C-alpha cells in the first residue's frame, strides 16, 4: 500500500537529491554535460573530482560572508514576522466589528503571487521615482537610497519578507489562539491575573506547539527565500543582500558555462545546514517536554 508513496518520493525527492550530491562531486558544467541539440549529440565529458568543490567552497571567504548575512537575515525575518503575527493574532482574536474584513485584508499579501508583490515593492522603493521617497519628500525628508545602499537594502529586503510572511504566522497563531479554552482566561481573570499575566501564563504555553512548528518552518523558508532577494535587489548593491541560495543561483545560472557542480555543492551544504538546525531545534523542544 505504501508503494505509490515510496515511488513518488523516490521520483520527486530521491532522484534529484542523489543526482545533486553526485554532481557536487564532479566538475560538471554546462559545457561538459551530455546534450542533444538537433542533430548534434555532445557526450558527457565531466569527471569525478571527489571533495574538491567542497574544499574550494569552504576555503573561500565568500561562503562564510554569505552565511553570516543569511543567518542575520533569517533570524531578523523570523523574529519580526513571528512577533508581528502574534500581536496581530491577539488583536483579531476578539469579537470586533468587521473582523472578517480585517482578516481578509491581512491575508491579502498571501493571495498575491509573491513575484507581483515583490515587483510592486521594487517600484515603491525606487529611489528617484518611487512612492516611498515621494512621500518622504512631502514631509521634507531627503530621499532614502532604499535599494542603493548596503544597509538600507538589507533593511528593505527584510521588510518585504516580513510583509509577505506575516499572514502565514497570523493564520497559524490565530488558529492556535482559538484552540485555547476561554474558561482558562475567565478563571484567571477571577483570580485577579492582569492582562500581561494571562498572556504570559495562558497564551504563550497554549501556543507553544503551534509556534514551535511555524518558527521552524519559517526559518527553513526564510533561509532559502530566493524570490524576495533575487527579484528585489538581485543580491545587490554589490553582493550586500546575497544569501546562500541566491549565490548558488549566480554560480549556476549567471556565469557561463554554468557551473553545475559548484552550485550543487552549495546546495548540499545548505541542506546540511538546515538539517542540523532542524535536529538541534527538535532536541531543544524535546528537552522542554514538547512532543513533535
Amino acid at each position, binding site marked *: 500500500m505504501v508503494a505509490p508513496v515510496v515511488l513518488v518520493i523516490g521520483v520527486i525527492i530521491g532522484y534529484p537529491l542523489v543526482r545533486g550530491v553526485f554532481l557536487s562531486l564532479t566538475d560538471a558544467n554546462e559545457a561538459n554535460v551530455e546534450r542533444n*541539440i538537433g542533430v548534434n549529440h555532445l557526450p558527457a565529458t565531466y569527471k569525478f573530482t571527489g571533495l574538491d568543490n567542497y574544499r574550494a567552497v569552504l576555503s573561500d571567504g565568500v561562503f562564510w560572508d554569505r552565511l553570516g548575512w543569511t543567518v542575520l537575515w533569517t533570524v531578523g525575518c523570523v523574529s519580526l514576522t513571528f512577533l508581528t503575527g502574534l500581536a496581530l493574532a491577539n488583536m483579531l482574536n476578539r469579537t470586533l466589528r468587521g473582523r472578517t474584513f480585517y482578516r481578509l485584508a491581512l491575508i491579502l499579501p498571501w493571495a498575491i503571487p509573491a513575484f507581483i508583490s515583490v515587483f510592486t515593492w521594487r517600484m515603491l522603493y525606487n529611489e528617484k521615482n518611487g512612492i516611498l521617497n515621494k512621500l518622504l519628500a512631502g514631509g521634507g525628508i531627503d530621499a532614502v537610497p532604499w535599494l*542603493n545602499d548596503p544597509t538600507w537594502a538589507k533593511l528593505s529586503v527584510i521588510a518585504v519578507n516580513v510583509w509577505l510572511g506575516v499572514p502565514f504566522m497570523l493564520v497559524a497563531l490565530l488558529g492556535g489562539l482559538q484552540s485555547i479554552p476561554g474558561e482558562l482566561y475567565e478563571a484567571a481573570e477571577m483570580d485577579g491575573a492582569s492582562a500581561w499575566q494571562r498572556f504570559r501564563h495562558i497564551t504563550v504555553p497554549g501556543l507553544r506547539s503551534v509556534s514551535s512548528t511555524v518558527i521552524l518552518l519559517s526559518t527553513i523558508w526564510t533561509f532559502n527565500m530566493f524570490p524576495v532577494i533575487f527579484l528585489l*535587489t538581485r543580491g*545587490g548593491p*554589490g*553582493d550586500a543582500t546575497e544569501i546562500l541560495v541566491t549565490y548558488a543561483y549566480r554560480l549556476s545560472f549567471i*556565469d*557561463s558555462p554554468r557551473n553545475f557542480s559548484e552550485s550543487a555543492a552549495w546546495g548540499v551544504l545548505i541542506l546540511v545546514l538546515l538539517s542540523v538546525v532542524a535536529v538541534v531545534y527538535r532536541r531543544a523542544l524535546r528537552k522542554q517536554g514538547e512532543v513533535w
Partner: protein
Amino acid sequence: MRRGIRGATATALVAGLALAATACGGGDSGDGGNSGGELSGTVTFWDTSNDAEKATYRKLAEGFQKQHPKVRVKYVNVPFGDANAKFKNAAGGNSGAPDVMRTEVAWVADFANLGYLAPLDGTPALDTTDDYLPQAVGSTKFKGKTYAAPQVIDTLGLFYNKKLLKDAGVEVPKTFEELSKAAKKIKAKTGATALYLRGDDPYWFLPYLYGEGGDMVNARDKVVEIDDGAGVKAFKTIKDLVDSKAAVTDATDGQENQLKALKDGDVAMAVDGPWDIEGARAGKAFKDKKNLGVAPVPGGSSAQGSPQGGWNLSVYAGSKNLQASYAFVKYMSSAKVQQETNEKLSLLPTRKSVYDVPAVKNNEMVKFFKPAVDGAVQRPWIAEGNSLFEPVKVQMNKVLTGAATPEQAAEATGNAYRKLLKDYK
C-alpha cells in the same frame, strides 16, 4: 512560496508531467523545409528589442510571411535582461527554444561554444558577407565558423539636452574631467544634475575603463588587464563623479531611471545608445526633437573609447525548421529590413550598402553614431565574454556605495576573471 510544501510538491509534479509530455511529444512532423521548393512551417523568433522598438520589429518579422505565405512567424518579445538565461534553459533542456533569436553580440561565442547554434556558413542565411561592416562580422565568428548574421550595430554616445547645456553656458564635455567641472555650473544655472551614471550595468563601465587606456582582458595574449592601474582609475572616476554630485546613480532599474531622468530634464546628460533615441524623444524635455544632442562618450585621462555592441541573428541548432529559419535570418538582416529599422528607430545598419541610401545617410543619429561605431572598441569575442560583466557589476556597486575602494574592486574583479578564465595570466 509561503504556500509552502504542498504548493512546491504540486509544482514539482506538474513540472515532471510537463517534462514527460514534452519528451513523448518529440518527433514532431515540423520538417518544414523546402521539400516542394517552397518554405513552410513555423519560425519562432525571439526578439529582444525594448518597449519603444518592439512594435516595429514585430511588424518587420511578420513581413516575412508576405514573401513566404506558407511560413508562420511566431513573434515573441523576450526582455533583454532575461533572454540569455531563458535561451540557455530552453536550448539546454531541448524544449521551447526559438528557431531564430536576436542575440547580443557577446552571447554568440558563448552559445556557439555550448553547441546551441547552427553554423551559417554556406547556408542561405548569409548571402553576401562582403556587404557587412567588418567590425560587425567580428562578433559572429567563433573558432573559424560563422554563427550569426549581424543585424544592428551600436555603441554608446553621450546624449545631452542642448537647452540645459546652453542655459548653463557650458560646452559639451570631451572628458569626464570637463564634465565634472561643468557640473556645478549646470546645477547652479538649471537645477539639473550633470550626468546620470548607470551604476547598475557593467557595460556602462567600459567607457571609463577604455578612457584610462585599459581593457577587461587581452584575449590574444590571454592576460587579465582589469586589475592593472587603468581599472583602479576607472573605478575611481565613477566614484568621484557620484561623490561630487556631478552624477546621480542607482544600483537597480538604471535603464528606466536614466531614461526618465533624461526625458524629464532632471539630468543634462546621459551615456546611452541608439536603442534609446526613440524613447528619449518621447519625453517632455525633447518635445522639440532637435533638443537631443549626441556626442562621443567623454574620455578619461589617456584615451576615449566606447564599447562596440549590437545584435545578431542566430539560428538554434535544434530548430526543426532550419531552411525557413535561414531564410528568415536572411530576410531580417537584409538591406531592406535594415533600412526600415533605421528609418523607424534610427538604429544603425550593419550593411555598408544601406549607408549609401540617402535617407539613412542623412539621418542625424546615423551621422553621429556611424563614426562613433567605426571608432568603437571591439570586445573580446570569447565564450566567456558575457560572463566578464557580472564581477564588474558587483564591484561597481560596491565602489559606488562605499563598500569597497577602487583598488579592492579592481583586484576582486581581476581575481574573479582568473577563476573564470583558467588559462589566463
